[in-house]
């Protein structure tokens, strides 16, 4: 209230000034280094909203009020220049290059700031870092860009998002994902609908001071995406065309071949009956003979040219005369059958330009990308147009419209389907190496061809149980459909009114719509559609609308600079889904629902979520030395009960430009130094149910023709916002004109956690959302940029960043909460493993040993250790964390004349991965399953010292138990991308009639080093592996031409 009063007083005061007359100032702006004139330079009367930009020739003309004292000239990449007017009517300015980027404009919440004046923690990635990379989804550009940001690995499915965490994991049941804001408006669409070429900058806001103005949704950081706008001056047309190839970036786990497979399974069968050295020799002899006679019956296929009962001898060795028989030799590689070299074709065309009153940017883009798994692809067409128009010197408006259409085939490998039986990654990894893909005649070993002489898929149920019998991934990829077609339309407009010299009122209106049409079809021959076939269609639509009104006030009194903003925002999100499914296909080759007989699903629903907020921020700087920023926001969310729906969020931040102080200016080697600190509180309501507080029964449980409902959840009237309180302290510095860096500390305390508290199942419910629990994240972030060599022709820049993260609960609703592979306790992190404790293998009989929980049960004593072979008695323990000790990235940029080479690595050190995928390849005898080469180290006879238990088909549950045995070092080093580009010399450009031309080769995911071949460490933040679509390697050759 007090602030409002002050503002009002100021308004009156300023209003009085309005009647004074002004004068016209003109001038030209040039570059210090090159001497040329600069179009598009912003010229503003300091402390006001009065300003213009220079035209094509670098000239400007501006009506200024009488009391104006200083003109500010700002331009991207240049140091800002301030000229005292002092009665002059012609003022020229010369701008110098800005080595440390302190005058760089940083996009912030509801505005911009200069980097040097910014009190918060933000990292910006500009278009130059994006345009040469073959990335389809802009989330890829964020990986490695700044410390404190963790990103999951790319996925092989073209266009898929990468998950991003900013400064740890601040929520448990609520969402940990950052808020995306596109051109000033919270964005609910898919990031992959945005063509990276249209992006001017991506800014990650990390601390509360920079995010608090987004109050309600900002707890997990904010990612601001700003699209390009036209620059005044002669129009420019750009063409960016590239062609690439896509392959698998990481190798598969090493699995044993058919010659090892049979003896290993023979051994599993034999040992289930009798174990050498443990059971009597007579029993072992009988069991060996049994296994030799019957192992084929268990496995079902014999790819060798020997009799079914002579594949493995009674000595457990493969028949020495066995070789792969006829067509079997070429038909056992399932992975090869579903992979390919994909192609990536990208063509973008954009043109832009403007006068001092109007600017425009228009682009169209076309992308075609094939994943390395067959039938996984993306075709995307995007279009964007952005126009700004300065109607009068006090009224500005603009319109920004974008549309995208995407079509994607999923080959049933979507990330959400990692447990799907026919996920190709799971399927090919999980199948034993003796099974043919096609039908082969067991009498001849030759393909059984169809009437047209073609090979036929072996879709029958003859494989052993572990080999996904009854399913067939190459066939299902060929015959099924899983396709998304998404259309996105977005429109934004604003009207900006400047008045009373210092005030500006802006209204923004935006509308985003995303429509997704999902086509899903299963064939009648094999898989979930058989017999009869089935089809599923769903149509979903998400509409979001956002209105905001902002009032800004900018004023300078001598060396006091004020910048105040007041605002109101309302947001509405509406989601509709209509879906239907039918079975029993009528005609072949038609997968529309109408072509099926039986309706098995037909339903629809609508969800609505709304928020409303009031906010304000005041920035003050004293003489460009001391900066203070304070903000406040009140937010209401429809997810909470009317009595508890409003939350108040706020922040304060300060910055001190040490380099403006004489005592620092006297130190020669310090070129720049800035200290900043902030504290603030933001909220979170994301990731919980849209109607979280309401007690509900769900519809749709009709019994025959009678209406039926069932209890869905209990009331939660007391739910309130989760709050996130963070402190941030940083030092930014520039030394020796070579080294620029930031050292930063943060501590983020999440309070009132939205927590799905596990309930006793006997209550009939398994959990309930409550506000309980507190956890903190804290860490140190260091980023450095070092100009190792800087000569006229050759420069070498090294950038590196490093982050630490500590995550810890300080309050929990229960003493302990076991959640999958983790256990939450006070003093522990979200991702501390809680696992049964593996001990090793008993040299006497090859049994898997675990520490015993209940020592009165059947146990084995080894030395002073009390152990068990019973999975139910294996003791749990805390066994390390999924969170790494240190993570970050480093990159090198070399440029020599027209050449530039950029190489970026990402890395993490420490942390553990729970490698479930490896575990699944280490079974001690699941007939038919894929087996790792590590199984060859198994225990075979008494005295063997090994960490792989004996093969034993009857002990798979005990021996292959989920335990600390599968925890693996998660450290990795990833050559994330490299780009080599060449600027064609001016002579060639002149001949071509182009202003600038570049050719480049660029690659993503080029090389990976980690503890186990095949292991994909970066799948998720919780450290577990599943069968996600392995990342792909993308290599492209491209050309950018500007006209």
């Amino acid at each position, binding site marked *: 209230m007090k602030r409002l009063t002050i503002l009002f007083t100021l308004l009156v005061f300023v209003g009085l000034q*309005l009647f004074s007359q002004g004068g016209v100032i003109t001038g030209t702006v040039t570059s210090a280094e090159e001497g040329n004139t600069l179009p598009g330079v912003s010229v503003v009367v300091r402390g006001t909203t009065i300003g213009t930009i220079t035209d094509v020739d670098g000239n400007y003309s501006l009506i200024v009020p009488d009391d104006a004292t200083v003109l500010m000239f700002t331009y991207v990449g240049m140091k800002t220049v301030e000229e005292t007017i002092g009665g002059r009517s012609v003022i020229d300015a010369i701008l110098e290059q800005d080595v440390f980027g302190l005058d760089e404009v940083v996009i912030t919440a509801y505005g911009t700031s200069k980097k040097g004046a910014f009190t918060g923690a933000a990292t910006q990635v500009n278009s130059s870092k994006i345009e040469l990379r073959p990335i389809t989804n802009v989330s890829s550009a964020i990986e490695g860009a700044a410390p404190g940001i963790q990103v999951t690995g790319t996925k092989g499915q073209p266009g898929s998002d990468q998950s991003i965490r900013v400064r740890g994991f601040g929520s448990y049941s609520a969402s940990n994902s950052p808020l995306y804001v596109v051109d000033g408006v919270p964005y609910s669409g898919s990031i992959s609908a945005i063509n990276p070429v249209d992006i001017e900058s991506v800014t990650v806001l990390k601390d509360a001071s920079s995010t608090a103005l987004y109050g309600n949704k900002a707890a997990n950081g904010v990612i601001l995406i700003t699209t390009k706008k036209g620059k005044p001056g002669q129009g420019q047309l750009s063409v960016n065309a590239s062609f690439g190839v896509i392959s698998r970036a990481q190798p598969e786990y090493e699995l044993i071949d058919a010659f090892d497979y049979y003896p290993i399974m023979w051994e599993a*069968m034999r040992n*289930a009956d009798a174990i050498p050295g443990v059971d009597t020799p007579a029993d072992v002899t009988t069991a060996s003979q049994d296994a030799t006679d019957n192992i084929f019956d268990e496995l079902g296929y014999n790819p060798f040219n020997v009799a079914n009962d002579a594949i493995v001898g009674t000595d457990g060795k493969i028949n020495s005369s066995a070789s792969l028989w006829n067509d079997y030799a070429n038909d056992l590689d399932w992975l090869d059958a579903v992979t390919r070299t994909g192609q990536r074709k990208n063509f973008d065309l954009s043109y832009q330009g403007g006068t001092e009153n109007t600017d425009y940017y228009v682009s169209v883009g076309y992308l075609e990308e094939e994943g390395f798994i067959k039938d996984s692809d993306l075709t995307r067409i995007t279009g964007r147009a952005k126009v700004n128009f300065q109607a009068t010197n006090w009224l500005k408006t603009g319109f920004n419209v974008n549309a995208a259409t995407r079509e994607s085939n999923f080959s049933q490998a979507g990330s959400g389907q990692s447990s799907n039986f026919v996920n190709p990654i799971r399927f090919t990894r999980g199948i034993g190496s003796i099974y043919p893909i096609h039908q082969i005649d067991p009498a001849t070993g030759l393909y059984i061809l169809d009437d047209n002489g073609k090979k036929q898929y072996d879709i*029958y*149920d*003859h494989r052993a149980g572990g080999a996904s*019998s*009854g*399913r067939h991934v190459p066939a299902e990829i060929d015959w099924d459909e899983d396709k998304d077609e998404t259309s996105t339309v977005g429109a934004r407009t604003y009207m900006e*009114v400047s*008045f009373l010299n210092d005030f500006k*009122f802006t209204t923004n209106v935006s509308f985003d719509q995303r429509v997704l049409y999902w086509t899903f079809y299963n064939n009648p021959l094999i898989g979930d559609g058989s*017999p*009869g076939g*089935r089809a599923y269609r769903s149509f979903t639509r998400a509409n979001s609308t956002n209105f905001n*009104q902002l009032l800004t006030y900018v004023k300078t009194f001598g060396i006091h600079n004020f910048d105040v903003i007041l605002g109101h925002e*309302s947001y509405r999100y509406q989601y509709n889904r209509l879906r239907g499914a039918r*079975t*029993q296909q009528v005609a072949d080759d038609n997968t529309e629902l109408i072509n099926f007989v039986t*309706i*098995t699903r*037909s339903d629809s*629903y*609508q969800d609505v979520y709304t928020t409303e907020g009031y906010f304000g921020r005041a920035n003050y700087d004293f003489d460009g030395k001391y900066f203070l920023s304070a903000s406040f926001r009140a937010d*209401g*969310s*429809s997810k909470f009960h009317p009595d508890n*729906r409003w939350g108040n969020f706020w922040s304060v931040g300060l910055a001190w430009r040490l380099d403006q102080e004489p005592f620092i200016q006297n130190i020669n080697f310090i070129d720049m130094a800035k200290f900043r600190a902030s504290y603030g509180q933001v909220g979170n309501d994301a990731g919980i149910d*849209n*109607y979280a507080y*309401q*007690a*509900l*029964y769900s519809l749709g*449980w*009709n*019994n025959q023709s*009678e*209406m*039926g*409902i*069932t*209890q*869905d959840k*209990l009331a939660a009237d007391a739910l309130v916002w989760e709050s996130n309180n963070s402190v941030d302290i940083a030092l930014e510095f520039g030394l020796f004109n070579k080294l620029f860096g930031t050292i930063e500390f943060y501590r983020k305390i999440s309070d009132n956690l939205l927590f799905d508290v*596990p309930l*006793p*199942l*006997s*209550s*009939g*419910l398994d959990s*309930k959302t409550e506000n309980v629990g507190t956890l903190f994240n804290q860490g140190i972030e260091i980023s450095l940029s070092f100009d190792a060599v800087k000569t006229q022709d050759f420069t070498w820049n090294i950038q590196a960043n490093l982050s630490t993260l500590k995550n810890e609960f300080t309050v929990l609703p229960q003493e302990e909460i*076991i959640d999958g592979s983790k256990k939450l306790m006070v003093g522990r992190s979200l991702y501390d493993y809680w696992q049964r404790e593996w001990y090793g293998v008993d040299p006497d009989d090859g049994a898997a040993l675990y520490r015993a929980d209940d020592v009165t049960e059947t146990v084995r004593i080894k030395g002073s250790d009390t152990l068990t072979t*019973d999975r*139910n*008695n294996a003791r749990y323990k805390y066994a390390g964390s999924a969170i790494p000790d240190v993570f970050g990235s480093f990159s090198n940029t070399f440029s020599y004349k027209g050449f530039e080479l950029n190489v970026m690595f990402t890395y993490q050190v420490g942390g553990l991965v729970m490698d479930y995928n490896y575990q699944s390849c280490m079974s001690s005898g699941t*007939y038919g399953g894929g087996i790792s080469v590590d199984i060859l180290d198994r225990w075979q006879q008494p005295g063997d010292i090994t960490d792989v238990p004996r093969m034993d*088909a*009857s002990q798979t549950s005990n021996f292959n138990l989920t335990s600390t045995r599968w925890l693996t070092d998660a450290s990795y080093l990833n050559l994330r991308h490299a780009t080599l580009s060449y600027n064609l010399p001016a002579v060639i450009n002149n001949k071509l009639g182009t202003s600038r031309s570049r050719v480049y080769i660029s690659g993503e995911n080029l090389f990976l080093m980690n503890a186990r071949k095949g292991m994909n460490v970066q799948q998720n933040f919780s450290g577990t592996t599943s069968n996600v679509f392995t990342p792909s390697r993308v290599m492209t050759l491209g050309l950018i031409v500007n006209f």
Partner: protein
Amino acid sequence: MRKIIYSFVFIFAAGIIFSACEKEFLDNYPTDNVSSFGVTSSTGTALAALNGIHRTFYERRYGSQGRVGIGSWYYHIAEKADDMVFNYATWTTYVRWLNRDATNSYNKSDWLRFYDWIANANVLINGVGEETSGSQDEKDIIVGQALLYRAFCHFNLVQMWAIRYNPAGGNSQPGVPIMTETTTEGQARATVEEVYAHINQDIDAAILLLDGQPRTNKSHLNVDIARGLKARVALTMGNYPTAASFAVLARTTDYAPMDSATYFYGFRISSQSNDEFMWASHLTEDQTDKWGNYGAYVSRNFSSSSIRKNPRSISSILYNTISPTDVRKLLWDPTGDHLNLPPGVTIVGSARRYPYTNQKFIAVSSGDSRVDVPHMRISEMYLIEAEAEARQGHDAAAAAALYTMAVARDSYYTLSTNTGQALIDEIMIQRRTELWGEGFRWFDLKRLNLPLDRNGANHKGSVINDLFDVPAGDNMWVSLIPQAEMDANENMVQNPL
């Protein structure tokens, strides 16, 4: 000056338009749910909530297709015993008794499922009353059925997660929590004796409420089902006089055993018109769960990979006890070729063949897995009476009860002349054959304190993980309390490992 005026006009206009955000802007309600308040305000909505329970008896609730309604419980219970034989090593959780583990996901969902039904029933039991609009008869029907559901669920829970009820007495061993209120506080385990007492108390109350009340179809429970359940519980408790008398009471003229001809094609989607079935869930075309239906696991003709690869067989030992003139001899085929299927029924060519596979359960077609889920049949009532009388030494009464059921299956069957243990053995053989696949055998072994013995039949060691024997009274007969319950309920005590 004009621009100032314009500016202010603009600002005021904008202010009026956008500050008019009404309070209701933040009030949203779902379209696929209804508010819980008011569920018991009228008998109409309360009946909808009751039908929700009926429906979830055959609908997927916890993700996996192996966890659909009570049907999955029935065939899983059958898998754990000796009479149902798996031919192939897949979906072997229960066959191998792995569901017993505290961290097993089936163990968790089984436990949760029964308490979920109890929670839904408790809303009705505690909420339908004076305040509820509607007739007293409607209220009695709703509360009576809810009480029966609560009893049914506690009965299944105590049988799986506690040491068996010992008819000799001393049943102070831990049972399961008795849930009668809507609460999220973890409750302690009542003793087995207390749980059975509460089950009987609920059934007795339901009998009073439901006596004489009609029902719309066989998915609803009436007084006959209450009495039948009372008989089933009494048999488990070894209370044979009560078991026999309530089995007789439950057998009203509405029901009669199927004749041989009907029986040959009796287990399909015709339960509502077949007098054999007292209580059954009927699946309509749009309420099906293709891969999760009861029939997607136990039928012979549906083409799921589970059935194609692993058609369920009967134990060869049990099969060989069936008389050649008995219609049930035809429901399992010792050759596995199934040349004698009901008219119009086919088995897909890719289905694997194994001896003694069943054709008792017949799905609508190879592409439609629906089979009605049988919860209580009239034959069970005859079998309960026969067993209960025989165990009391009333051989003549026992033989007579058995005869009515057995002669309907086999017209050559003659009144048994067996007495004593021989008669009991004959009744048990009849019971095993008659109720194959319907979820009784493992509970019978447990209540009678018998060992699991899978030797000598067609069980394969590689499929059942060499689990041929489990001694009577072994810890393995009691499932461990799910870890999730242990973690969230400080009053909970674990069973012996």
